[in-house]
């Protein structure tokens, strides 16, 4: 059995191992990684500061792989075929793969080692930067390349006044030319960052506390900064290879052949540490290709690595920057719009027929549509292509054109997957082909290919309506439709089902208000809404009274206790800071509500696709760390949005300080107090696929906060799909969080006033569904186990006792099969 040892556990190592397993590698795999955690998506590193957790970014590790983390390899004994780690552990290998990546280059300026100086490469680096930013007011990034600007964006996100210092006369010198660089600079300065191009660093000076205080430029000018991040390029980590006598390049990088093998046939090198064909590749796409080539070779194949596409596209501080193909050529055509902040340039062959490459700033349209055409004949004149506007041009790609350069997927492969797997959405394409799963820049193109391939991307809610929920919402809104019967008669077929009926009921409730059990609406509700309680496995229901913000008086606690005792209910504290009473039969529900309502409680809507709770920590009233009254805000928000019907349940929380005890970032909308006001986070959830909410707006006053939440919720209710939580909804908005911000903060669609008015109508029209039900004899008649024997309880319901409380007796499950 082959013993494979991998040194380094970064993205390249991950891809190597994954490929080996997919190919059925039969040997053992041991990985020694220096970082304290398994490989994670370094490309998405910055998202760690805006809400992604380390777990979110971590790649899966195939079962059977032995991971030794926190294990830095210090030596290779090529004779004995062993590697040794810093802790003394020795690991024998038959095949060794070096995937050690690169390390940031820190120029030898005086003061570079002061506390407060950082690099930007690992999750640990980001933790350290975030911690240092807490006590800081300004920061500087040394290096205005791709990673430097990304780091600058991160510092800005941490609330620092941010400077960027770049030696070259313009930003991103490796990706864009001078014209593009100047447009980029305008964009970035407009966002409030200070850009110093053509500037070096003379020294970094400490303050009295011994930490970084300022950066001094060669001309003597000073930039105040308590945080300094070096982003002046990377160097391949070839030290192990060097020490064991393997050839390395003049400027670094472990020399490999086209099969990614070093001079020692038992040792491969892949990723950013490798020098392949005289080049070190600093992008993850080529690194992945190298990993696949090495995996193939290890399995006895003969794959070769022949170089790779160095195209890049990124969105920095809201500005799209992209370059592809060769960045020079016989002819070039430039489109420049300094007012609109757009710069596009195409390089073409001397007969102006073949596309060689291009640069775009402020509009990556040409990148999306033209990158796959590099080296091919242009589909139109360069001028036409450049003037095609933001959407980019609609071009028909040849089958062998590479659509996803990160994962090396061609259009032909995508079309084949669509046809053979019957794919109908981008998620399916991602799963089958891996296209779009790394940097995501080709996703718009995947959509286009889907549409072009003639796949009817079905948005039909069910067999009764050919429309999506958002479309039905607009139909109901614009046509002023008041009933399901009218809607299905005019816009659907059949008589509906358990999919469309509750969805339409929710739309009608959001738009028209009124009691959800009024008239025909009652029949649309699923059992929970129909009985205003949550059905449990034995057909009984649970009852959750609202406890706004989780604040409750002793008197009310006693009432809940008495009700539970008198009706023999099982009680449990919920995750939403309230109390759930289980085991009620339908005929008991109105009696239970009566007792609760008389004591001042109301429905908690635990049964509805509606606002559930707004949790809170105890806040500044009691807590010695609190900076705002989180309980007060949570109560106000819960009372404002109670009863609001939505595409899925809605959860919220308010934390009184950055310690975040209320776990607001796991909510659909979470609020965290700052010294200046409130930060609003959106799109979080727990559940099957946990997600952290992302920052939508910072330091809001209470009034502004409520206004933005009003708009957020109403826009969600209007446009989301059935059962789509806010996280998935935001992800699916074209343009994501930035687009959401444009709509509900900058009012780009001009609908904010309408959204607010809609919310005002909801707030004004709110009433307690429980009270309205117990006061209406007509509605009460439904609350019986048997219409012909209203006094008889359901005999199938039985309980036993566990830990002094009731528990359903399990009904034996024999499914009657004919």
């Amino acid at each position: 059995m082959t013993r494979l040892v991998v040194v380094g556990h970064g993205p390249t190592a991950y891809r190597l191992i994954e490929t080996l397993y997919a190919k059925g590698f039969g040997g053992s795999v041991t990985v020694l990684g220096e970082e304290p955690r398994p490989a994670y998506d370094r490309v998405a590193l910055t998202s760690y500061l805006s809400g992604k957790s380390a777990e979110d970014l971590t790649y899966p590790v195939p079962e059977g792989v032995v991971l030794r983390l926190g294990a830095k390899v210090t030596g290779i004994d090529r004779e004995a075929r062993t590697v040794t780690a810093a802790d003394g552990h020795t690991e024998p290998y038959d095949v060794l793969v070096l995937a050690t990546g690169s390390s940031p280059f820190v120029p030898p300026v005086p003061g570079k080692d002061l506390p407060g100086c950082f690099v930007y490469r690992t999750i640990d680096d980001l933790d350290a930067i975030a911690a240092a930013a807490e006590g800081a007011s300004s920061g500087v990034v040394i290096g205005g390349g791709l990673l430097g600007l990304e780091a600058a964006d991160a510092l800005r996100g941490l609330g620092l006044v941010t400077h960027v210092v770049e030696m070259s006369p313009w930003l991103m010198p490796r990706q864009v030319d001078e014209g593009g660089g100047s447009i980029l600079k305008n964009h970035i300065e407009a966002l409030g960052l200070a850009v110093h191009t053509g500037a070096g660093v003379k020294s970094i000076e400490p303050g009295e506390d011994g930490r970084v205080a300022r950066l001094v430029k060669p001309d003597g000018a000073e930039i105040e900064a308590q945080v300094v991040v070096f982003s002046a390029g990377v160097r391949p980590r070839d030290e192990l290879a060097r020490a064991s006598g393997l050839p390395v390049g003049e400027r670094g990088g472990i020399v490999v052949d086209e099969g990614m093998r070093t001079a020692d046939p038992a040792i491969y090198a892949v990723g950013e540490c490798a020098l392949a064909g005289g080049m070190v590749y600093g992008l993850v796409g080529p690194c992945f290709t190298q990993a696949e080539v090495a995996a193939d070779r290890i399995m006895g194949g003969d794959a070769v690595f022949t170089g790779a596409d160095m195209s890049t596209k990124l969105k920095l501080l809201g500005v799209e920057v992209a370059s592809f193909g060769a960045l020079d050529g016989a002819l070039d055509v430039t489109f420049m719009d300094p007012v609109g902040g757009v710069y596009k340039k195409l390089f073409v062959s001397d007969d102006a027929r073949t596309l060689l490459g291009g640069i775009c700033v402020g509009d990556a349209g040409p990148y999306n549509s033209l990158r796959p055409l590099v080296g091919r004949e242009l589909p139109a004149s360069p001028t036409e292509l450049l003037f095609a506007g933001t959407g980019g041009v609609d071009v028909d790609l040849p089958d062998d054109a590479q659509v996803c350069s990160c994962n090396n997927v061609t259009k032909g492969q995508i079309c084949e997957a669509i046809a053979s797997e019957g794919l109908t959405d981008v998620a399916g394409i991602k799963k089958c082909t891996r296209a779009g799963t790394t940097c995501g820049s080709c996703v718009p193109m995947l959509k286009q290919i889907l549409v072009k391939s003639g796949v009817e991307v079905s948005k039909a809610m069910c067999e009764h309506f050919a429309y999506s929920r958002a479309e039905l919402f607009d139909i109901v809104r614009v046509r002023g439709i008041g009933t399901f019967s009218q809607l299905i008669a005019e816009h659907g077929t059949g008589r509906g089902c358990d999919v469309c009926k509750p969805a339409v009921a929710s739309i009608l409730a959001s738009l028209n208000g009124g009691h959800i059990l009024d008239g025909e609406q009652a029949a649309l509700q699923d059992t929970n809404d129909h009985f205003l309680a949550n059905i449990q496995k034995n057909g009984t229901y649970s009852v959750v009274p609202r406890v706004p913000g989780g604040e409750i008086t002793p008197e009310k606690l006693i009432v809940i206790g008495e009700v539970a005792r008198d009706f023999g209910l099982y009680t449990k504290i919920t995750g939403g800071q309230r109390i759930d009473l289980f085991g009620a039969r339908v005929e008991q529900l109105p009696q239970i509500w009566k007792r609760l309502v008389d004591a001042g409680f109301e429905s908690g809507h635990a049964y509805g696709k509606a606002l559930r709770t707004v949790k809170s920590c105890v806040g500044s009233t009691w807590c010695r760390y609190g900076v705002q009254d989180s309980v007060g805000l949570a109560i106000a928000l819960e009372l404002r949005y109670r009863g609001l019907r939505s595409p899925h349940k809605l959860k919220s929380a308010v934390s009184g300080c950055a310690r975040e005890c209320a776990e607001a970032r796991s909510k659909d909308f979470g609020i965290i107090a700052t010294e200046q006001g409130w930060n609003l986070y959106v799109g979080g959830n727990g559940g099957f696929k946990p997600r952290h909410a992302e920052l939508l707006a910072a330091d809001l006053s209470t009034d502004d906060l409520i206004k933005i939440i009003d708009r957020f919720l109403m826009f969600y209710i209007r446009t989301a799909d059935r059962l789509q939580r806010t996280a998935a909804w935001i992800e699916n908005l074209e343009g994501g969080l930035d687009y959401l911000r444009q709509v509900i903060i900058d009012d780009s669609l001009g609908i904010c006033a309408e959204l607010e008015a809609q919310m005002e109508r909801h707030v004004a029209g709110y009433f307690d569904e429980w009270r309205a039900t117990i006061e209406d004899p007509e509605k009460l008649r439904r609350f019986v186990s048997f219409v012909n024997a209203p006094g008889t309880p359901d005999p199938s319901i039985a309980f036993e006792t566990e830990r002094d409380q009731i528990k359903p007796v399990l009904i034996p499950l024999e499914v009657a099969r004919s």
Partner: protein
Amino acid sequence: MSVELQASPVSTDRWHPVCAYSDLIPERGACVLVEGRQIAVFRGFDGALYALGNRDPFSGAYVLSRGIVGTRAGEPMVASPMHKQAFSLLTGECLDDPSVSVPTYRIRVTDGVVEVSIA
């Protein structure tokens, strides 16, 4: 005489009055208890009545009367409120798993009173 002969199968039915027709909400069910048996009765959109066993065979809970009523490919059906399997109101067959079914019962209206037969 022939009239009596034709009527004889009917006479073996034991019809039980269960509720007023107006007690039933269109496109919704209710449960009735007949000789210890739980029967889910449904009133369709067009006024037609249906009766099925109330027990959901998948969960074992007596809840089918509380499901959402609708159609699947034109066939009237109720979706179990537990795990959403659909049952034909005409045949009791589970439309998601034809090997599973629930019993059906005869149902009619006499002078505004709904009657169910469990024979």
